[in-house]
């Protein structure tokens, strides 16, 4: 089987040709690395993903998790994959060396995690949550906490979770009720119930370290009174692991990621659950906030990963499935039947999937790269610039990727026709698994509010202005190339539409009509996402066009026929041609709609809010 998880050529294009990550190696922090080590890491990731993780995907989907006598069992096949994942040291890829990690750039981690998640999203929840939890301890833990928990979590010996959600506290985390009472020895007694906890219980590791948000007795209500605790499933007492009174009461039956245990956890039913404070009391939200970018980017990667696998599978299917004659021969029953990739409507779907997947990939990797540039920055100014890009792009990386990624998986089913709807082909699983990405880690609705309510407002819109300026630089550069005119014009249009809508929001937010930006936050995020992805694809087109012209020149291909011959025989040429086409298709099908999308927002249409509840429907 060819690699049907992701287009490795495109991954390398983003890393080396667009972002030029080799340049990062010039900085002290990444000086140990080179293109050669990056390539070796990617190759090793591809191999593990394809040969060991992917074969567990359908198996996990069909078997799901089993809850027996308060203990969760994951599918048998996960154990071997997990062992190999840990032995390979994959959790440590981007962890700083002083914490025992390999210290690779985050952008490379994005690429590796994309591969692993494409191979099996549910499986990746276990190491993924563990890393998230360990990162918290890394940043805020005491030396003892690092040694006791973090080391074991990074090695994969113990797992981790994030426990925020409660029945009444989903999007509204501030409403949580889990309680912490201080013991004389400085530890806390934890009691309460959490729901929807991913990887909440399982048999991959002997212990699980829960990061639990709870309210210390007497703390203020709302988010200001939240603290965060390390609550292990088994606590260490006199060098031994003893039960810490954390019970898995139920696992959810759900649409996708069947093999990821989504648990209801009860803490302290027997009044014997001990928690250890992380950081200071009432600092819980601030601490979580600092980890938010990383976690949201991780969900964006999941959206990308499912889209990527779905596109690759659909493409292969379209080349193999024979149905009907070519359009020109529709009426001739004797005409030869052709693979469905000959049919324009199928090609349209494939093009859509291609450019969206590639656009998301570039955007996500760019966010990872911004993180690296912050770490490698030569000045505070430079660090602040990339921090700004990252902060404003994160809600887009999370939401646009998960929404559009989902649509890519849905189109993959469409390309497969009836077969795609059936279990026999993996695309329906991609779609089911993908759907969760728009829901957890802050629903996409909440992301849109974060963008409009918080990120736009930062320093009187400074973040927005700087990203718009960055797109302006590219525009100036790209405008010099007449061959890119078709891409540049819709891009420039979309850019000014976004600026206009943002200004409109600014005006509305200082008048009595502040509900409009709230109401249209999601469509605004979509418009912003279109431009952000358009930005990435145009950037890529500038590079790809130049490379393609070089190849044509080298081959002295100066006629359409000769160029066609080059495209047929030269793999790079074919690839670059595809890159330019992605940008072109995206500009003309997405960005050209921005005017309409902007008008829809600026109509200020209010029926959704003004309509009395009774009028939605009678029941």
């Amino acid at each position: 089987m060819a690699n049907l998880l992701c287009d490795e050529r495109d991954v390398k294009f983003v890393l080396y040709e667009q972002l030029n990550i080799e340049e990062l190696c010039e900085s002290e922090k990444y000086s140990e690395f080179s293109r050669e080590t990056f390539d070796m890491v990617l190759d090793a990731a591809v191999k593990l993903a394809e040969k060991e993780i992917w074969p567990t995907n359908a198996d996990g989907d069909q078997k799901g998790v089993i809850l027996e006598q308060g203990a969760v069992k994951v599918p048998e096949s996960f154990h071997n994959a997990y062992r190999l994942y840990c032995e390979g040291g994959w959790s440590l890829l981007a962890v700083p060396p002083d914490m025992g990690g390999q210290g690779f750039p985050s952008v490379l981690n994005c690429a590796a995690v994309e591969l692993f998640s494409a191979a099996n999203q549910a499986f990746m929840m276990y190491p993924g949550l563990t890393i998230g939890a360990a990162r918290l301890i890394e940043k805020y833990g005491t030396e003892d906490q690092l040694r006791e928990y973090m080391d074991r979590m990074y090695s994969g010996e113990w797992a981790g979770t994030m426990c925020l959600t409660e029945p009444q506290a989903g999007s509204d985390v501030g409403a949580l009720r889990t309680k912490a009472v201080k013991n004389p020895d400085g530890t806390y007694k934890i009691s309460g119930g959490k729901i929807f906890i991913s990887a909440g219980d399982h048999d991959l590791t002997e212990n699980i370290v829960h990061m639990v948000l709870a309210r210390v007795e007497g703390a203020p209500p709302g988010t200001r009174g939240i603290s965060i605790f390390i609550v292990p499933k088994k606590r260490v007492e006199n060098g031994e692991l003893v039960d810490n009174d954390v019970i898995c009461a139920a696992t959810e039956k759900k649409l996708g990621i069947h093999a990821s245990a989504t648990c209801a956890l009860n803490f302290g039913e027997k009044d014997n659950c001990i928690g250890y404070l992380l950081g200071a009391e009432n600092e819980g939200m601030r601490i979580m906030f600092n980890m938010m970018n990383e976690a949201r980017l991780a969900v964006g990667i999941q959206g990308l990963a499912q889209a990527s696998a779905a596109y690759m599978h659909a493409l292969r299917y379209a080349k193999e499935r024979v149905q009907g004659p070519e359009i020109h021969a529709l009426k001739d029953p004797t005409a030869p039947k052709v693979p469905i990739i000959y049919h324009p409507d199928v090609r349209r779907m494939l093009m859509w999937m291609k450019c969206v997947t590639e656009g998301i990939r570039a955007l996500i990797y760019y966010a990872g790269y911004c993180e690296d540039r912050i770490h490698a920055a030569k000045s505070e100014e430079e660090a602040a610039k990339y921090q700004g890009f990252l902060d404003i792009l994160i809600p887009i990386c999370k939401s646009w990727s998960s929404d559009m990624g989902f649509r890519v998986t849905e189109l993959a089913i469409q390309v497969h026709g009836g077969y795609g709807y059936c279990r026999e082909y993996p695309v329906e699983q991609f779609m089911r698994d993908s759907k969760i990405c728009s829901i957890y880690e802050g629903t996409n609705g909440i992301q849109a509010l974060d963008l409009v309510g918080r990120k736009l407002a930062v320093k009187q819109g400074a973040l927005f202005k700087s990203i718009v300026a960055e797109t302006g630089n590219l525009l100036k550069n790209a405008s010099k190339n007449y061959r890119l005119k078709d891409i540049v014009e819709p891009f420039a249009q979309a850019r000014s539409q976004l600026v206009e809508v943002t200004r409109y929001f600014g005006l509305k937010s200082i008048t009595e009509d502040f509900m409009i930006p709230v109401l249209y936050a999601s469509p605004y995020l979509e418009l912003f996402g279109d431009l952000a992805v358009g930005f990435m694809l145009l950037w890529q087109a500038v590079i790809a066009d130049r490379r393609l012209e070089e190849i044509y020149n080298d081959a002295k291909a100066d006629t359409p026929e000769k160029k066609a011959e080059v495209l047929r025989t030269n793999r790079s040429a074919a690839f670059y041609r595809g890159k330019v086409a992605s940008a072109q298709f995206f500009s003309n099908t997405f960005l050209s709609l921005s005017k309409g999308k902007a008008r829809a927002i600026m109509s200020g249409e209010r029926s959704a809010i003004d309509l009395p509840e009774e009028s939605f429907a009678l029941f």
Partner: protein
Amino acid sequence: MKSLVCMKQVPDTETQIKVNSQGTGIVTEGIKYIINPYDEFSVEEALRLKEKFKQGEVVILTIGPDRCTESIRTALAMGADKGIHINDESLNSADPFVVAQALAAAASQVDYNVIFCGHRAIDDDFAEAGAMLAELLQIPQVTLVTKVEVSDDKTKAIVERDVEGGKETVEVSLPCVLTSQKGLNEPRYASLPGIMKAKKKPIDKKTAADLGITAEARLESREYSMPPERKAGKKLEGMEPPDAAKELVRLLRNEAKVI
């Protein structure tokens, strides 16, 4: 326990091969290269032997252009100790005899208990280099090996090999050449710490002159061409079964000429 592993870099099995327009070779641009899968078994077996004896060395020996460094590094990341990279225009795409000569010359400059080769390379499929190498070094060889057990004193090995329809177990004195077959083992994956360590392991670069050999090809490749595309099949439609059967026999006899 010292093993010398002869390892070749080949195009990935997934690569769609294209012949260049002059018909002198394949289009190498944009190809993904991997370690010849049979050589990967060799690397793994050599590592296991070293682990079993708790001492020794695994040396990777490769002939090929610059890009082969990547494969050598991958083997080093799996745990091999050092590499020898013979990179010489006159050898890089030489015939099996010249290759075996170069391997033999390099082998005689190092210490080994066993030399591993893949039983064949999946690109040109000659399956000759290993056998020739043993002849040139005048040491025994066992081909198509699926199990290796080396005696504690390292003077002999009990080796299981594939034969038509079954297995054969032979005893061989060391040093010898073993050519690896599928089923020998499951190669390990390169780990991240392994990759980082591999960067610092030595790779000796050598040319034909360093080995003191002058290559004289025994084989000349004249032309590369793709296998002819399979012609569309013929369907016998709208016929009664007895007529269809008759027609089928006629076609098999007169057109396909198989009966």
